[in-house]
């Protein structure tokens, strides 16, 4: 019996035993779908984080004040050091050839008010480079003055949400408002972009870094964001940064430089582990489907005893019967896998269309591994029933006896 005939024979058995086939197909496709859909949730989380990082702009380094000697953990948020990181430090970094943009950041909370409307919000003091490094866009108005790192100009740029709250009726651009003790003129509005790595830019105000130094009465930078010209010479650049800061800080490079890649990698590892364990849990349903395949195959062997006896009398050997039943299961499993894949991808497609905000996708490796697992489980669990079929005594089977 050649391969094409095996398929044909199995296919005929499949489509002409509708109920049995439908049951098995359902079981297998549910198993495959559950793996695909559950892993797609993990993959969705990974995509979300990747999206967040790519919004930051590529080739970014973050310089934090204080030296953290630990490695391999999440990036440190605050370090401790007797020497502050200053605006002047950040200006020095501009001289490093591989650095294209330097955005010093002073952050703090302050009360912003327009007459009786007031909000306690995070104020970011920075320069125009910030817009390039974090890929921020304005929907209205203009960016910070080019001399933000020199002069404390009383201007600010508002997040879209904050502008809405403070100026519900009028356009915010051109208006004056009060931040802490000082008055600022609104010169621009940020584009509606939502959250970025936990920072809700919609409810923030951005002012020149010198103004922030004056507002918070402190020269200490919260951090410096750097954009590189070339990502591949990252290590060398970090070395140069350390050297430059050490020169200014009495020979001690008391800073921590975090690269975007290292952060992304850390997240990636965590999410991958989570996704894989979700996938493993979902694989249990594939296993259950396998047991169902075995049960139904056993029933099928009992039902088809007469046919098996007949095939033997027509010259089929035991190994051929074994093969017929294995291929029968294989055909069934492959159909089930296909149905499961089509179903899962349709569900994900519908979610993507209706809820474009939720980044969700089926990772290719889960499709591949679920398919392979299903086929292997299918074959494994039909092995015994097929063996039983091969052992049927043709004489008894043809006589209709057990």
């Amino acid at each position: 019996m050649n391969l094409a005939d095996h398929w044909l024979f199995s296919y005929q058995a499949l489509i002409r035993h509708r109920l049995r086939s439908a049951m098995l197909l359902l079981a297998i496709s549910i198993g495959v779908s559950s793996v695909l859909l559950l892993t797609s949730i993990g993959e969705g989380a990974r995509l979300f984080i990747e999206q967040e990082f790519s919004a930051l702009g590529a080739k970014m380094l973050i310089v934090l004040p204080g030296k953290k000697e630990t490695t391999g953990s999440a990036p440190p948020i605050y370090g401790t050091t007797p020497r502050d990181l200053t605006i002047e430090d950040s200006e020095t970094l501009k001289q490093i050839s591989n650095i294209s943009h330097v955005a010093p950041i002073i952050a703090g909370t302050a009360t912003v008010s327009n007459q009786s409307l007031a909000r306690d919000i995070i104020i970011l003091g920075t320069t125009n480079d910030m817009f390039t490094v974090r890929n921020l866009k304005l929907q209205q108005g203009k960016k910070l003055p080019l001399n933000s790192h020199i002069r404390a100009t009383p201007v600010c740029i508002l997040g879209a949400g904050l502008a809405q709250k403070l100026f519900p009726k009028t356009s915010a651009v051109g208006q004056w408002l009060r931040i802490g003790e000082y008055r600022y003129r609104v010169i621009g509005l940020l584009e509606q972009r939502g959250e970025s790595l936990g920072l809700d830019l919609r409810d923030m105000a951005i002012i020149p870094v010198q103004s922030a130094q004056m507002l918070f009465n402190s020269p200490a930078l919260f951090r410096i964001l750097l954009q590189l010209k070339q990502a591949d010479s990252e290590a060398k650049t970090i070395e140069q940064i350390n050297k430059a800061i050490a020169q200014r800080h009495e020979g001690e490079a008391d800073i921590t430089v975090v690269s975007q890649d290292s952060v992304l990698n850390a997240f990636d590892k965590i999410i991958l582990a989570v996704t894989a364990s979700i996938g493993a849990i979902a694989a249990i349903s594939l296993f259950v489907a396998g047991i169902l395949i075995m049960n139904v195959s056993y029933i099928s062997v009992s039902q088809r005893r007469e046919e098996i006896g007949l095939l033997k009398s027509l010259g089929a050997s035991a190994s051929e019967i074994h093969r017929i039943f294995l291929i029968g299961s294989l055909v069934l499993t492959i159909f089930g896998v296909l149905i499961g894949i089509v179903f899962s991808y349709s569900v994900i497609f519908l979610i993507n269309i209706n809820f474009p905000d939720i980044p969700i996708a089926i990772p290719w490796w889960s499709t591949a591994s679920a398919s392979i697992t299903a086929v292997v489980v299918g074959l494994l669990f039909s092995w015994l029933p097929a063996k039983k079929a091969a052992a049927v005594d043709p004489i008894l089977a043809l006589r209709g006896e057990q």
Partner: protein
Amino acid sequence: MTKRPKTDTPIIKLSGINKTYQVGDQPLNALCDIQLDIQQGDYISLMGPSGSGKSTLLNMIGLLDRPDNGQYQLFDSNTELLTEELRANLRRQHIGFVFQSFHLIPRLTALENVEVPLMLSGTAPKVRREKAIALLTELGLKDHLTQLPRQLSGGQLQRVGIARALITEPAILLADEPTGNLDQKSGHEVTQILERYNSNGITLLVVTHDQALGKRAKRQLSMLDGQLVNDSKTLAPSKVMPDKTIAVQTISNKNRAELT
């Protein structure tokens, strides 16, 4: 059907075949020292009460069963030495089965059922389809090719069964009560078909209860309690004495009770 040359050397040669089944506590001698030669083109009927070993002998000849001891030579092969795989091959090449209850695969059409043996032997789909259509047309089933077994009458089913047995052009056709489930008219038709192919050279062995059918055969065998008690070729109820026949008959009844 191609005519096969008739030769004097037997194509089937059984000598000293024994087969014992365990029925309950005691062994049942299904076949007892069977000696049988069958020539190419023979028309043989095999009769006897149920439990006498007819079916076992048929299965033995059809290579579905193995003897406990004795020799079975089919053409040039000593079959008792062969592996299951090789026996299946021989069966596929030389032997066609016709069953009392037809044994068609219910989900396959008449045409597909006839194709199954060629499918098993790996014949190309186009070739086997043409062959099956030709054979079914020859048997008057041209209009029923795509019908499923449940849509066919008994006579038609048996003709499909015969077509399936003949499609590999076997040398030997083994029919187990081929007319047992048919009315008289269909039974007669089926008998005529079988006899037609026999006159074309195929060796035909019919197991039957039907005396009328049995008498039509040129060579008639009778079995009792696993022994061949009558062979019309040797022209006499030779081996067994009448009084022994009676003695054996009582045991046979006992065995039959245990069998059913």
